């Protein structure tokens, strides 16, 4: 399996708070992508961080990557109710010929208004 042992996490926070979610992966990857999936929709990419980067920021988003521990995190500052979604990290193995992305279990985030 691409992933470490983990269950779907669920977080409930108040609007305005910050939230951080984590994922860990087993096999080597050159890039970690974070996707957000809102109810009834397909995933949409939020941010991408490469193996030679430790941190990447985009607006209220901050992604980190630790290749030594094979883990990544996604933080959202000043959450909004519209941030309510399931967040997935996804990796691409070096042996993937066709850009196969493997998704993690996901973190369900509920932002209460």
């Amino acid at each position, binding site marked *: 399996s691409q992933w470490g042992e983990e269950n*779907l996490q669920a977080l409930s926070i108040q609007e305005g708070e910050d939230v951080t979610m984590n994922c860990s992966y087993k096999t080597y990857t*050159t*890039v970690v*992508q974070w996707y957000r*999936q809102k109810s*009834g*929709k*397909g*995933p*949409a*990419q939020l941010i*991408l961080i*490469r193996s030679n980067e430790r941190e990447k920021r985009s607006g209220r988003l901050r992604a980190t990557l630790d290749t030594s521990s094979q883990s990544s995190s996604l933080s959202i500052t000043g959450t909004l109710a519209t941030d309510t979604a*399931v967040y*997935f990290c*996804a990796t*691409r193995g070096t042996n*993937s*010929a*066709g*850009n*196969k*992305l*493997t*998704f*993690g*279990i*996901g973190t369900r985030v509920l932002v209460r208004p």
Partner: protein
Amino acid sequence: GPKVLQIPSHQIIDMGQMVTLNCDPVSNHLYFYWYKQILGQQMEFLVNFYNGKVMEKSKLFKDQFSVERPDGSYFTLKIQPTALEDSAVYFCASSFGTGDERLFFGHGTKLSVL
């Protein structure tokens, strides 16, 4: 932004029947994918497709599954015959290239096999 369209949004069929799920990918994209998701769980890779050929497929891509994109039309996933365990939401995605390319996903087709 670029959109991937999936038709229909919901399909209900009897076990053993054939079903075809249709995907209209982003117009200039070259790589196409199908993922399966059961009840809000993990997105599971089924297959990717480029230049008329399957590039990679997972164990979930059973012999009853097939994909094609005839003459630049819809990218389709056909299941023949269907089984109860095929009930899930199927997401189509496309990307322009490989490497670090982001995938653009459709809204999914919910398949209910009775």
